């Protein structure tokens, strides 16, 4: 029985841990949604590591077709080879390459399969995989072969909700929405990356970070990975907590758009006038 407890490098909420185990026990794909930078992809890595299983990653792009995940029949190569006759072209098998899904099915051991950013693909993409994910098998007509999963892989699917996923597909999944971590959880997460970070610096960083995130009009809100980068920059620059408190050094590590920079630096409650008492919003218009 697989029971996922989490790993040292990945902090996860008890609710998510339970849901991972529910999806493993039910043998259903786990669909993970959430803001960018909440560790959707890392979850699959953590599951693979925690359970000691191989991880197969299928990165979805806008041009990815469902068939590519199953197998690719390289007809062009076959045509090319047919000219010289140095290879047996009648053996179609050698021109069939299994895709990521096919590899996961044919693996001797149970694997963790990560289908990353499924919403990037065409709207019909998930529908084309319905049967394959349900039955965990598919048929290759060219060689009259059926690839059937020896062990049902643990399937983790991530989505940034750029596109709606079709209902029949959703019905077969277990779903979890990773909320943006609150300050306490975030402290834990940062601690995993920097175990001996100065407590005062961490507190100031988190304060600024969540203050920045409160700006509603930001085009791109800073996420966990940006916070980690920022702290890295602060450490490398040897910035003291005092300076973080009074100004925002290396703001570029947190905000990636010029409009956002302008917004924050020009905001009436910018960091120069920022203290706890001015947080009660006074910008009434």
């Amino acid at each position, binding site marked *: 029985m697989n029971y996922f407890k989490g790993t040292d490098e990945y902090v996860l909420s008890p*609710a998510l841990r*339970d*849901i991972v*185990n*529910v*999806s493993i*026990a*039910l043998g*259903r794909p786990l*669909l993970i*949604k959430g803001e960018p930078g909440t560790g959707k992809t890392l979850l699959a890595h953590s599951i693979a590591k925690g359970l000691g299983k191989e991880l197969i990653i299928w990165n979805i*792009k*806008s*041009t990815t077709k469902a068939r590519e995940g199953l197998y690719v029949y390289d007809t*062009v190569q076959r*045509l*090319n080879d047919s*000219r010289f006759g140095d290879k047996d072209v009648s053996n179609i098998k050698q021109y069939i390459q299994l895709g990521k899904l096919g590899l996961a099915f044919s693996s001797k051991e149970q694997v963790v399969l990560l289908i990353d950013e499924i919403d990037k693909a*065409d*709207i019909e993409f998930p529908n084309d995989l319905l049967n394959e994910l349900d039955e965990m098998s598919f048929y290759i007509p060219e060689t009259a072969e059926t690839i059937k999963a020896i062990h049902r892989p643990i399937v983790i699917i991530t989505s*940034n*909700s*750029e*596109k*709606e*996923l079709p*209902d029949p597909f*959703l*019905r*077969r*999944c*277990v*779903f*979890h*929405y990773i*909320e943006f971590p609150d300050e306490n959880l975030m402290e834990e997460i940062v601690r995993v990356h920097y175990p001996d970070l100065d407590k005062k610096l961490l507190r100031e960083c988190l304060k600024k970070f969540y203050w920045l995130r409160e700006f*509603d*009009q930001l*085009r791109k809100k800073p996420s966990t990975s940006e916070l980690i980068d920022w702290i890295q920059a602060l450490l490398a620059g040897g910035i003291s907590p005092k300076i973080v408190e009074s100004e925002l050094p290396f703001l570029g590590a947190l905000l990636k758009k010029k409009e956002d920079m302008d917004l924050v630096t020009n905001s009436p409650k910018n960091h120069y006038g920022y203290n706890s008492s001015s947080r009660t919003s006074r910008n009434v218009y």
Partner: protein
Amino acid sequence: MFINFFYNLKANGVPVSLHEWLTLHQALALNLNDCSLTQFYYMSRAILVKNEIHFDRFDIAFLDTFKDIETTDEMLEKILEGLKKVKELKLTEEEKRQIEELDLDQVLKNFEEQLREGHYKNHVGGNKAIGTGGRSTQGAWGYNPAGIRIGQGESRHRRAVQIAEKRSFRNYSNNITLDTRQMRVALSHLRSLLPIAPEEKLDLENTIDATCKNAGELEFIWQNKEKKASKVMLLMDVGGSMTPYSSLVELLFSAASSQINRFKHYYFHNCIYQDLWTDIERRESISTQEMLRNEDDDFKVIIVGDAEMAPSELTWRNGAIDYWYHNDTPGIVWLQRIRDKFKDSVWLNPLPSRSWDFIHTARLIRDVFPMFELTLEGLDDAVRHLMKSAGRVYF
């Protein structure tokens, strides 16, 4: 049974199917929720709800169904007063194995018996009765995988209802008017209007030609099959009664413009006449007629406005609200021209749909454009309508 939970979910508008309901029961049969209502809450939510915008409704339905749930909690709390935390028990492998063999029903029965006999008072250690740190099947911090965990700092059962009560996903709910927080989600709906990347394909004709010219040596010609990209035009009502919504709409527009390449936007006030403004202060303008002439007809047109004005503004010549502005064509005619020019167009209204019937001009405009609410649901419907390309019957 809690079949009423299913119907409560349905009544609250959570799209649950029987398929998912059966999956939940399968999970319950496997005892994946570990007899805890909190875990049941998360588990049922994971299985039954597939979109975070429905989490809030799920919470409401969950509250409705389970708020009066009489778990043995009240009783347990009394018991727990008598329980004190002791050091964890160390067991040999042999003992662990024995304990693992106990089955849950037996444990539950045992538990009830113990309760009835009143064995629970201040009991620490021991093999049978409720207590802490013992090997018995009840009590906290003990060792027994089939045990009933009662009270580890707080009652676990009460907590599920409290979580639901918090309704922390209220902001994700899809029938409240868009706020800035939901901008991103709204944009993701617009994303389905985005261009689709080119696709590489073997150009058979040219490959054969090239191969022939090459004296039979294979020469592959690939072609980029570019799928047609959507173009979006946004027309926005600014000023006057739209002021309360202006920041919202402006955000939608600026965010959309950064997302969509072939994107055009214009502003108007109350109704569209012969001029369209290119800036929000309405200083720079272009001629509507020229715009209609020059733009391709495959733009997807989204008009945002409250459609609330004096009927004269819509139907009279020189009816425009600015008295120095003379229009010799009534606004409604301009709207019809826009509708006729572009294949797909919709009108988004920040006012709730229930009020549309009471606004004369909104009724008139609905005859011209299909009107949708400026909420997540409405935007979703609007985008779907645009994508269907069935907006207009050709005359």
